[in-house]
């Protein structure tokens, strides 16, 4: 280990220490407690080994919640990913009104959920706006209850997309802004049209951002619970019954051990998924000399 490396390590330690201490205290420690509880009984005293895992794994409600959560993520995240990326490229290339578009698309993130929910109800209730429009167009009375029924999943998806497009957009834009002008010039000199530039300049440079967006999208997809709860209550249509619903109910009946167990399984699952994802991506990386922690 040369002197440079040693100095780097010391600096790393110094820079990292403050963050590490706090993170251990406020995140790792509680998580450790959660792991501990997954091996104890409800009251938190008796050790029950893997019993909780068996119970939760075989629990019908858990399976449904996991299935729905996965279904939601698989549906929504790719759509969001591509759509927000597309929009960010559009915004980057449009000359006029760029700022206006940016701000417009970012606004939904900022609106408090409770405030926008009534608007959603106005649009989606049985006497709501969409039903009126559909009735007008089809000359037939439409009084579909969008939120409770087969369309519940659709409504939730739309809600999530509406709210979070701006979020991912911000991240893409930050990533885009880091691409040096020189690369574009080089591509143009080589005769690349706009599509080619996207393929050979933008996408590669955004690879790191992709990982960022992916992870954050997963994290945010759990946050949709707040909107789902406000719109459809504790026990919504079965198609949108997801993990946070279950966690909340277990919490209310004080089944903390089940909640902890499910959480551990969630983290393990996420870890595995992440590992696979980065394994795939890593194979394509390192060509451009960027080194990354991923």
């Amino acid at each position, binding site marked *: 280990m040369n002197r440079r490396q040693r100095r780097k390590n010391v600096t790393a330690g110094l820079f990292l220490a403050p963050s590490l201490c706090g993170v251990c205290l406020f995140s790792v420690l509680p998580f450790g407690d959660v792991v501990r509880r997954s091996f104890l009984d409800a009251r938190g005293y008796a050790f029950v080994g893997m019993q909780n895992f068996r119970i939760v794994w075989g629990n019908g409600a858990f399976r449904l919640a996991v299935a729905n959560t996965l279904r939601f993520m698989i549906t929504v995240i790719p759509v969001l990913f591509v759509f927000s990326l597309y*929009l960010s490229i559009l915004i980057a290339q449009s000359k006029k009104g760029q700022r206006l578009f940016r701000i*417009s698309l970012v606004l939904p993130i*900022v609106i408090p959920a409770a405030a926008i929910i009534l608007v959603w109800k106005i649009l989606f209730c049985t006497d709501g706006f969409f039903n009126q429009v559909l009735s007008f167009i089809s000359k037939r009375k439409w009084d579909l209850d969008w939120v409770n029924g087969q369309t519940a999943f659709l409504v939730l998806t739309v809600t999530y997309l*509406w709210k979070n497009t701006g979020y991912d957009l911000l991240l893409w834009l*930050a990533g885009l802004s880091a691409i040096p002008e020189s690369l574009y010039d080089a591509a143009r000199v080589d005769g690349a049209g706009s599509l080619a530039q996207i393929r050979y300049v933008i996408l590669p440079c955004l690879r790191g951002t992709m*990982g960022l967006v992916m992870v954050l999208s997963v994290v945010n997809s759990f946050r949709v619970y707040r909107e789902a709860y406000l719109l459809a209550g504790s026990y919504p249509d079965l198609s949108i019954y997801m993990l946070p619903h279950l966690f909340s109910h277990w919490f209310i009946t004080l089944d903390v051990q089940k909640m902890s167990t499910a959480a551990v399984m969630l983290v393990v699952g996420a870890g595995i998924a*992440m590992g696979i994802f980065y394994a795939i991506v890593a194979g394509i990386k390192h060509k451009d000399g960027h080194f990354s922690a991923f």
Partner: protein
Amino acid sequence: MKEFYPYKNKQRKNRFLSVGTFILMVSAFLVWFPLLLMVAASLMPEDELLWRYLSPLGIAKAPVRISLLPSYPSCEAFIELLLRSPGFFVMFWNSCIQVFPMLLGQLFVGTPAAWTFARLDFPGRQWLFRLYVLLMVLPFQVTQVSNYLVLDQMNLLNSHLSLILPGIWSTFPVFIMTRSFEAAPKALLEAAYLDGAGEVRAFFLVGIPTGYPGIVTALVLGFIDAWNTLEQPIAYLKDMQLWPLSLYLPDIVQDKAAVAFAAGIVMMIPPVLLYLNGEGKLEQGIASSGVKE
């Protein structure tokens, strides 16, 4: 914003991107439509609001009479909110107390950590970083009791610190900033080392300027999250006087619907302003990146 302008000398507009403007406008419209409904509703007197939205408010069955403009514009809701609800200001202030110190803390604690993950190779870096990421995935409910116990041991419950301290050490900003630091061009860093800069100086001279977009993004997103946080305050703050603004927003109730909308709009203003400010810094950051080719 760097202008990515593909068809400089060509008149032929790429179909892929000309449809683009149309799509952008549609998206913007989709965003503004509900928002304008909200704004209109907040400017309506209570009785008009009730008349229009009987059904969603659960009063009676009647078709919704939607409108982007109030028939009888009135500032009652805002007046009631800003002048007659002293609780609102207290909560606003609480939100400020809880959010700004947290952001500052995130800056001081998280930025060096992010730099470390991005540029400084040390053993176990990858695994530690992955841990940081995994910790973000858990919904709050799961760790609620455990967090409560930790905060209780530290005697922080029922005080502003119970929200500020855990927030400072959230791994979320580190995650975002790391990515942005990674994108810093290696050439610049090498140049700094050649000039004889130590690690710390390299961080300040190269890291922060090039990582600007990431830092600002992290701060803006962090602000938005903290400003709208609901679960932590209810769990940790028993004393209603410490409650932040996000808890003020009542569930929309019949006789206070307009005020609720007004509150929502007022709540939105600080994050929007912050974002507008931050935007500028994003652009500045790029302009000063100093890469000369």
